[in-house]
């Protein structure tokens, strides 16, 4: 390719933690900037929101009417769109409101002047509005995920969507299982690896930040959580902690044809 690949980083409703995974890359970020031309990355001070780019990294969920329009523009301006983080991939923690029976009443309870709040009823994943080419799951994502997807794209290969279970990485790293030895409600058996089993390394049960792994048997794990003494409500809370939107979870395993995530670059 003669010209440099162009890149934009767009933010929607989010905490900016995933953009920090980019900014925290240190010298790797400098190397990235040498290989691609960064057209828009507000948090790093580069502004050209409507630039046409080869690759767009999108953080955050869609929660306002303005977001809804802006994501269409981002899609139209980008050849390859990658969502990053829980908010962009599943609606994020703010999708808790999708579970509320009366979301209006929440606004009234939280804000002294709720009339200033102008938001949609739901917090939605980017893929609910536009086609997504690749997803980086995690809350937040980490720098290695970015390096992997960017270097794979620059090498001209389809990025590998690793949906491996966290338990596998946990065992590779030699951690002692928190569920087995401490009766801790670890989400590892249904959660996608990506963090390198960070919580189990410190003797804590996985929270499920990286979303569903392939073939997640939720009901099977729920049975074990019941056995640990968790009440049905607590089990549900455990499963909806980071990705509360019910649409964010894959169907229970064991099905003969596993549904692949929409927008997954696996063709």
């Amino acid at each position: 390719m003669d010209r440099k690949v162009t890149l934009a980083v767009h933010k929607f409703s989010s905490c900016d933690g995933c953009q920090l995974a980019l900014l925290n890359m240190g010298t790797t970020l400098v190397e990235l900037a040498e290989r691609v031309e960064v057209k828009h990355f507000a948090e790093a001070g580069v502004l050209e929101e409507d630039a046409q780019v080869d690759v767009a990294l999108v953080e955050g969920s869609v929660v306002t009417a303005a977001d809804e329009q802006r994501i269409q523009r981002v899609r139209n301006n980008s050849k390859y769109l990658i969502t990053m983080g829980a908010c962009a991939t599943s609606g994020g923690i703010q999708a808790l409101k999708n579970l509320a029976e009366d979301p209006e009443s929440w606004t009234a309870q939280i804000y002294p002047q709720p009339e200033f709040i102008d938001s949609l009823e739901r917090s939605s994943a980017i893929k609910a509005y536009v086609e997504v080419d690749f997803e980086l799951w995690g809350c937040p994502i980490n720098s290695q995920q970015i390096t992997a997807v960017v270097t794979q794209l620059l090498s001209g290969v389809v990025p590998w969507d690793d949906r491996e279970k966290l338990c596998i990485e946990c065992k590779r790293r030699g951690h002692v299982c928190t569920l087995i030895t401490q009766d801790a409600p670890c989400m590892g058996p249904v959660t996608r690896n990506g963090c390198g089993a960070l919580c189990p390394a410190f003797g804590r049960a996985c929270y499920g930040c990286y979303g569903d792994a392939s073939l997640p048997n939720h009901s099977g794990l729920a049975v074990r959580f019941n056995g640990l003494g968790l009440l049905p409500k607590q089990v549900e809370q455990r499963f909806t902690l980071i990705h509360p939107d019910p649409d964010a979870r894959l169907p229970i395993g064991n099905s003969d044809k596993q549904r692949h995530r929409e927008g997954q670059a696996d063709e």
Partner: protein
Amino acid sequence: MEQQIPSFLLRNDLSVLLDLLVADGYQLHGPQVRDGAITYASISSLSDLPVGYQDQQKPGHYQLAEDHNKRFFHWANGPQALKPLLYPAREVLWQAKRNASGSIQFIVPVQSFEKIAVIGVKACDIAALKLQDQHFLQGEYVDPGYQARREGLLLVAVNCSYAASTCFCVSTGDGPSVESGFDIALTELDEGFLVAAGSEKGERFLTRLPLQNATAQQLDAATQQHETVAAMQTRRLEPIAVGQLNDAREHPQWQDIAERCLACGNCTMVCPTCFCHHQNDELVMKGDESQHIREWDSCFGESHGQLAGFQVRDTIKARYQQWMIHKLDSWQEQYGRSGCTGCGRCMSWCPAEIDFVAEANIIGGADE
């Protein structure tokens, strides 16, 4: 080597053996309590060993309790033993670098392999090691990393004096006492150890230990102990003929297991004979350097059954069948024996509390 009558070593003189090993350039590896389990890692003295601890295990459960005994090795196996030492979970096989001229250079990383002495290896793990040797060393291709690490290994085995409820090595013919494949074997008694050499290498150390002749009572106590542990094992894997499980793929029990199994892969990760891996290339951001990585993989994972563009095993049932049928059935054709040495780990470390032995006995028809 001929089987010799064991000699006796006083309890605290085990430290003399450790000192001799260190003087000979060995790093010591042994059992210790870490994060609520007995795991093998680097040790420096006898005080690192799990004296006075004992495990309680059943499918999906592992608990350590303090025990009044003063023994070093009065426990059954924890999550791992030799596998991570010889076959690391993640290893760089080679690196590639692109030079300024555009040519690509391939580099095999230089690794220094240490001499490691492992203290307190159990019979099931020695049996598993023989299978790993067969796989990595005795096939058409030899794995150079495994070979170098294996050559530097010295094994101080210990005959079991305790069995967890998950142990069933008696029914696989692999324990509870070691018969071969070690350098030194210990039988722990209350006041000390019966010691025997299993190799020339081991013999060289024994000649320098303050050994006494074993008394008839000590030899009796050792025999007694062997029989007690064997009798403690209530779990039994019934014999499985080649093809027996493979021919039972329509058995309804598979679907029953698939409802419970989480396809988390823990069983395969802790199994001392599992050797599956995948290989990936990791690029640096500059794009001029990559590492070719080999990592443990599992037949429960997605990449294991992913061929060019399609998934061979897309259900939990198909993945569980792959695990059990390969381990207990087709392994026999491949390696001349079953791939299970009765260690029980795949049950203790299973988050879904699946009882591998009971399931195999049901599908094999032994429970009907």
